[in-house]
């Protein structure tokens, strides 16, 4: 059973790294996008276990995104991802789950 993890960040290079890192682990399924609309669409279409908020999301956009995602999937875990897909990722995900 894979854990579905949705990452949203504005930097395309970091988003690509996150996609590679998340999907490198067979127990995780990573879905990585740069736009709020894409994240909302994913949450409409499928169950997500954890959302990672990446870089460049301004506070208003973050609040709006959280509200919309939680309306679609109440109880969804949403955490800040720090570091840009580096050594913190595994610990962040394990702690959140």
């Amino acid at each position, binding site marked *: 059973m894979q854990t579905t993890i949705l990452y949203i960040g504005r930097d395309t*290079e*970091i988003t690509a*790294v996150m996609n590679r890192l998340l999907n490198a682990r067979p127990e995780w399924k990573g879905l990585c996008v740069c736009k709020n609309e894409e994240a909302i669409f994913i949450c409409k279409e499928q169950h997500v276990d954890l959302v990672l908020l990446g870089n460049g*999301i301004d506070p208003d956009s973050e609040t709006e995104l959280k509200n919309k995602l939680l309306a679609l999937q109440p109880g969804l875990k949403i955490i800040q991802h*720090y*570091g840009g897909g580096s050594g*913190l990722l*595994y610990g962040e995900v394990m702690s959140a789950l």
Partner: protein
Amino acid sequence: MSQFILHKENTRGHANHGWLDAHHSFSFANYYNPERMHFGVLRVLNDDSIDGGMGFGSHPHDNMEIITIPLAGAIAHKDSMGNSAVIKNGEIQVMSAGTGVSHSEFNANADEQLNLLQIWLFPNKKNVTPRYDQQTLDVAARHNNFQQILSPNADDAGVWIQQDAWFSLGKFDEGFETAYKIKKAGNGVYAFVINGEVTINGQVLSKRDGLGVWDTDSISFKANTADAEVLLMDVPMELN
């Protein structure tokens, strides 16, 4: 009443990749210990030994204050902001990753081992403009003194970062005693022994041991050996 947490050297996470021999004071990469996630805003303290000519290719970071202190050898740094530099023992490098930056880090020498401390702090403000700096430190000024090497203030001693944190390095004679006053209410101090043996608040610490102390406004310090060298990281205990 002050509180403390002791991290003995041999309880750190360890990963030997051949060219890279890394010890992690806090959870990092595949080392995950829920009891070792952070000390306040101090999230990463890696003690890396890197073979000659080897290193980390270009990789991104965001929203993290990254401080690198070479203990032996020199590191060659290049980043997406256009910086290209070599940082050697006696110097300090800082990078505020902010909205995102890519960099590479390699041992600058082909025939010499590089040993460095890499320290990551959570920033007090997200999505700042990325920034790079490095400074040469006056090593003599840390003899029997906690020399400030990092602060939140651009016009204060050392490099500055996007966090209410102060770092100090000291190298002490055997028997030297002093106290360190915490810079800001609510901060704690994480002491990392680079060399020798010291006693902090009654705790005897050996090389590469770490001690975090909080709920206090100062710590007591004594050098037990002639080569005692310590890094103090004075950091907010509350995550932003």
